[in-house]
């Protein structure tokens, strides 16, 4: 029997969306492998989560322990490796999230299992596992094959699987925590919420986003002019914040804000997954980029392939004329 484990990710009393996605992906994978899906729920006082999960897995293994109250990759690893040794799932799915990236590699090393991270698709044709992931910032897709192994660890990219309701009735299995003492060498202190800036980009109807293509801080005026002409606010992708050109609260993406404006204009943004995750909910998306192969054009409704330093000033002019 080739069973699948999927780790339930929750934080501050809430199950994260990515959990439902990997459970859907897990049910599908388990059926391809002729096995069953087990949702693995670790935490303290998380028993009530099983209500939201029971229709989405064949089995829910619950380990409750005060030492699992807040995520700690070291504690999670100890529990998960004990469960894997015990149940021998063929594949263990973990979200590629802030928690998952901290946990999966060391777990794979401990178990001596093959690992691929950030998979967007998993194949199991004729029972042979292969995974698909993106490299070079999303510009290339890679198909990964594995050596024969007793089990595999895969982390799964958010939004890779559509959430389905398979209508299962999970058997709930409570397992005693194998943890004997607090992890002294890595202690959770606190969560700190992201700072709220003077401009809340999540509330704007029109957002102009800038990326690496802006090249120099001085060039910001070019897009500020466009934002002014169109009555929008300025936002950006990660490299602009890293360079210190705009504050963190202006960042759109997986590690920044999620925005749903009426109009989003992406200027000099290639459209890596991390950025797209934060803006794909915009009603209308316009992309301006010099690289016609940039992934952003696959997300946009309208695109102009060209030099932003020529296109953007021209667009600002035309918009000013329109508005009179």
């Amino acid at each position, binding site marked *: 029997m080739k069973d699948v484990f999927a780790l339930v990710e929750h934080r501050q009393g809430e199950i994260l969306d990515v959990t439902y996605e990997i459970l859907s992906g897990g049910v599908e994978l388990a059926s391809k492998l002729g096995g069953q899906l087990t949702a693995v729920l670790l935490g303290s006082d998380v028993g009530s989560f099983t209500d939201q999960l029971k229709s989405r897995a064949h089995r829910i293994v619950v380990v409750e322990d005060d030492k699992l109250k807040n995520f700690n990759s070291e504690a999670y690893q100890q529990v998960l490796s004990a469960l894997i040794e015990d149940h021998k799932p063929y594949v263990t799915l973990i979200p590629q999230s802030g928690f998952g990236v901290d946990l999966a590699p060391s777990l794979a090393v401990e178990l001596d299992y093959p690992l691929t991270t950030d998979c967007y698709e998993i194949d199991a044709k004729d029972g042979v596992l292969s995974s698909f992931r993106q490299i070079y910032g999303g510009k290339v897709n890679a198909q990964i094959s594995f050596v024969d192994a007793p089990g595999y660890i895969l982390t799964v990219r958010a939004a890779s699987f559509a959430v389905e309701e398979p209508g299962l009735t999970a058997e709930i299995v409570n397992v005693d925590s194998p943890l004997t003492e607090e992890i002294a*060498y890595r202690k959770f202190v606190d969560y700190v919420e992201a700072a709220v800036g003077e401009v809340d980009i999540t509330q704007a109807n029109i957002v102009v986003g800038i990326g690496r293509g802006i090249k120099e801080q001085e060039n910001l005026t070019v897009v500020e002019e466009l934002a002014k002409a169109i009555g929008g606010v300025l936002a950006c992708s990660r490299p602009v914040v890293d360079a210190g050109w705009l504050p963190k609260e202006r960042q759109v993406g997986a590690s920044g804000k999620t925005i749903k404006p009426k109009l989003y204009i992406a200027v000099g943004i290639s459209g890596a997954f991390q950025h797209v995750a934060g803006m794909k909910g915009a009603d209308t998306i316009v992309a301006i980029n010099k690289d016609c192969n940039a992934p952003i054009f696959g997300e946009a409704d309208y695109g102009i392939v060209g030099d932003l330093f020529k296109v953007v000033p021209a667009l600002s002019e035309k918009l000013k004329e329109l508005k009179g």
Partner: protein
Amino acid sequence: MDIIVCVKRVPETSESDVKIDPSGVCIVQEGLVFNINEADNYALEEALLIKEKQGGTVTLVTMGAKASDDTLRMGLAKGADTAIRLDDPAFAGSDGIVTARILASAIKGLTFDLILTGCIASDDWASVVGPALAEMLGIPHATMVTKAELKDGSAQVSRELEGGLLEVLDMKLPAVLTIQTGINEPRYASIMGIAKASKKEIALKGLGDLGLEEDQVGKKGSKTTIEKLTLPVQEKMAELIPGAPEEAAEKLSGILKERGLV
């Protein structure tokens, strides 16, 4: 504080056109500019800042061919003290976990309080090496670190989670921290630093020096292999507006007006 920084030389592809070579498992490297991996550059800067504040040493370690000497020399020019390059024909095709194994073998013999590396490599995008290395060395780790405050034998670190939420942790040292971009402002090397670094020796270590066997490394030792690369096919494609900048801008502003967006 003695700090080891693991770095990697990668092609810069964010602004370039990427093509797949005839082998189907590599990209065409010709015409691409190579540089230190972006997140590793922030890790190096963090190490240099700690050294300036607390004293100690910074040792660079990389796995890579001769060309990676440039990356190491740039790090030495910025203020790192020593550099080690791990290279052997047998290393070719190593996956993330095997790369960590090779790095761990080299690091085991060194004295250190802290290991820093980038949280992600811009070529393989895997985020595997840092935490895998920590597991092999039997020390704790934290990934995607955006702040690290070091006290005697411990560190308080902030990790970046989704939506900009930070997780604050207390860690015992020695530990591996994988550094997120934006944590500091990486410096440029000075002309004098570059001149000095050009004379420094870079230690070179191969399979035998590291006490590893051929079947533990490279493609043989790796449990995962790139089977095939393909260029992504866009499921949908934007309506591209043709014409010179003024012409395209005029058409676009017309569309936006028509759709009531401006």
